[in-house]
Each structure stands twice: as structure tokens, then as C-alpha cells.
């Protein structure tokens, strides 16, 4: 059985470590916040100027001056801080954020990512995505393995305009977990875990890139 969105984000949450400073992208990555293991403190950074983002506010706590990067009203946890945009992106571009979890439209076999524009469609802008993939220590992508039409999203080289080059460290999809590996100057994703009941053939059919297989292939526990 392929993983549900909830299980994908639960598996992503296993990558978190106590004390990590983490930026979660809009959409599925946001759900990772629901699965932070008990007893672990993870600081969520919102690039509009908040470190220590908490849950959505109760109705009587709503504050128009306190929003996240998705422009949603949020709260700040004890120990949180507010700062300006240059300081926020100094955290991101200066390599101070431990992990970013993002979505993607395409990923190349060398770890390039495209997730900000489709030629011919209205371009809304890039926000902080290019800064995150270029500056954060470890970039994890959670996404569906294929498009809605069933076409592979992990491909030899991206056809869409890039967000960043050779910057993705790990991919978690409903089918498998992949880690970027380097061997004799070549970079490829290595499949390390399969979803329960999913076969190597299932992954290979849904992927249009050269991938490597771990000799120690495990089942995803999520």
C-alpha cells in the first residue's frame, strides 16, 4: 500500500532531531508539524520573521500582526523571536537552519529541483524557495511520486525552470524514501526504504531517472 499524505509527513518527521531549527514549506510539508515526536523541541522558522511558530490561534487569540509565510494567523511558542526579513534570510542563507522540508514539481537525478513556475502559466513568483534550497543545511522533499496524470516527477533532468541546482538531499513519496549519494564523482538518489507492499518495479515504473538501490533495503515505518 502506498503511503497516505499523513504517513509521508510522519516519515519526514522522523528526520527531525531535538533542537533542530526547521523551515516547512506550504502544503504537505506543513503537516510535518503535527508529527514532531513527544519530548522533542523543534523550532519552526517562518521566513516572514518568526522563529518558534506555534499552532493556529484560538478565535479570541487571533492577531493580524502575527502570521506565517502562508499568510495564515498563527501563534508564537514560549522562547520565540521576531525579526526583520534580512535577519530571517541570514538564518536561511547563512546555513543556520538545520532542515527545510519542501514540495516539488520536478527533481532531477542529480538533485536539481523545480517548484516555482510552469512556462505559459501565470508566474506568481518564487517567494523564499530559492533561498531555502541554496542555503539550508539539509533539504528534504515530500511529494507524490508522479503527477496527477501519472507522469514521473523524478526525471533525468528538469524540464521546468529550476529553483536550485544539486541541492536536494532526500525525497519521501508515497512509494519510497531516497537519499542523495555520491560515488566516484557521480550523484544519484539511492532508494533506502519501500512503502509496505510496494515493489522495486513499482518505483522504477514511476521514475524516469537513473536511481541506485540500497543493498540494505528496508520497509518504511510510518
Amino acid at each position, binding site marked *: 500500500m502506498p503511503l497516505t499524505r499523513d504517513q509521508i509527513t510522519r516519515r519526514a518527521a522522523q528526520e527531525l532531531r531535538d533542537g533542530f531549527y526547521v523551515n516547512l514549506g506550504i502544503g504537505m510539508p506543513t503537516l510535518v508539524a503535527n508529527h514532531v515526536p513527544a519530548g522533542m523541541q523543534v523550532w519552526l522558522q*517562518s*521566513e*516572514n*520573521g*518568526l522563529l518558534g511558530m506555534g*499552532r*493556529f*490561534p*484560538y*478565535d479570541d487569540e*487571533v*492577531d*493580524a*500582526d*502575527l*502570521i*506565517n*509565510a*502562508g*499568510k*495564515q*494567523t*498563527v501563534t*508564537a511558542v514560549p522562547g520565540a523571536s*521576531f*525579526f*526583520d*526579513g*534580512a535577519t*530571517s*534570510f541570514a538564518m*536561511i*542563507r547563512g546555513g543556520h537552519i538545520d532542515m527545510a522540508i519542501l514540495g516539488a514539481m520536478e527533481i532531477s537525478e542529480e538533485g*536539481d529541483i523545480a517548484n516555482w513556475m510552469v512556462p505559459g502559466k*501565470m*508566474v*506568481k*513568483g*518564487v*517567494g*523564499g*524557495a*530559492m*533561498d531555502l534550497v*541554496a*542555503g539550508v543545511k539539509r533539504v528534504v522533499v515530500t511529494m507524490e511520486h508522479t503527477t496527477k496524470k501519472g507522469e514521473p516527477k523524478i526525471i533525468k533532468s528538469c524540464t521546468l*525552470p*529550476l*529553483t*536550485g*541546482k544539486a541541492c536536494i538531499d532526500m525525497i519521501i513519496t508515497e512509494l519510497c524514501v531516497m537519499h542523495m549519494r555520491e560515488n566516484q564523482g557521480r550523484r544519484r538518489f539511492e532508494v533506502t526504504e519501500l512503502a509496505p507492499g510496494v515493489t522495486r518495479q513499482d518505483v522504477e515504473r514511476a521514475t524516469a531517472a537513473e536511481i541506485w538501490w540500497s543493498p540494505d533495503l528496508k520497509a518504511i515505518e510510518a
Partner: protein
Amino acid sequence: MINKVYPSPQAALDGLIRDGITLMVGGFGLCGIPEKLILALRDSGAKNLTAISNNAGVDDWGLGLLLQTRQIRKMVSTYVGENDEFARQFLSGELEIEFVPQGTFAERIRAGGAGIPAFFTRTAVGTPLAEGKEHHDFEGHTYVMERWLKADVSLVKAWKADTVGNLVYRKTARNFNPMMAMAGRVTVAEVEEIVPAGYIDPDSVHTPGIFVDRIVRTVSVKRIEQRTTTPRA
């Protein structure tokens, strides 16, 4: 003593706004925007403006109001998803847009205020936003050169000011306002409260008064774009 406190948003913009000037406008979405100064800017009727702002407001609030009246010719922004009129003018070619990655946007403005004409960053290397720009290698990595942004007039929003222009922001309404206050040849701050000099602890000042030329107190509407809540159990 120079009086920085003005009685109304219109008075605070008096003599500053002309056709074709470049403005910086603070805010992230509708959070921390100088909402009444934007209304006064609209009422000035100035045209062919270049607006440097993270977003373009929504159709009927924030900078969206100046798109309705076609006063903006060019925008320098990071993301503009929330505005239908923006999309229409952009697709028809009436409006020019320069998209900038958000960290580069913040840093270009900071550089403009700090007198740094250019800097290098890894952000956007290998993407369409770095095409045609100078690249340079440092310590084994490739970086792209980005230039400063400056404005004729910066319109910022703060929570509190004192009479000499020191500013304090509130929560995430700070966003790009402090850098924009530095990068405007003239900076006008819209605030919710003005206190006498000495009533803000110098340790607590976010923007020192040297960067602020004019102050106006207004009552903010503070419209919320995405009201998300947790139900009480």
C-alpha cells in the same frame, strides 16, 4: 527643532510624490503595510510609479488599490499570488514585473540602505533569475552578483514611534519595514502610537530615528488574509 510628526497621511506625503518615482512599500501580504499612506498615495494621482514591495496586496486593499487605478508601471516583488487585477495587467503587458527571491530582495534593500552597491549570493545560481548576471567563484562555490535597491520614497509601517522618529515594530508586522526605512531617500512611517522622545527605551529601538523623516499616526484596519484558528476543545 525639526518636526517629524505630520497631522495626516496626505500631509505626510506632501511634496514627495511625483509621476515616475520609485517607492518602497513595507509589508508581508497585508501584514505590516502602511495602509493609510497607500490610500494617500492613490489619492495623489501620481502615475508611472515603480513599487518595490514583497507582494502586491489584494484586489481591493494594499497596493492592489494602485493597480486598480493603473498608477503602477513596474513592480519589484517576490510573490504576487493573491491579486487577480495584477494577473490581468501582467498578462496583458500593461505592468512590468521583476521577480526577486525573497532573501535576495531583503538583502538588496538592506544593501541599498547601507551603501553597498552589490553583493554575491548562492541563491538562484543555475536558475532563470540568475541569467545574464555576473557570477564569481568563492571557496569552491559559484555565486551570483545582485545589486542594491534604493527608493525615492519609502513608506513603512511601525507599531510605535517617538517624536524624533525612533521606531518599534510589532510581531511579524516588522518584515521588510526596517530595511526599507534605511533605503529610502525620504522615509515616511505610519504608526499606531506616537510617544515623546525618551519614552522608548533606547535598547528597544528597532529603527533608529536617523532613518525616518516623517511620522503620521493612524488607526489601522489590519485586514487578515487567511484567518486560521484552532477550535477550543
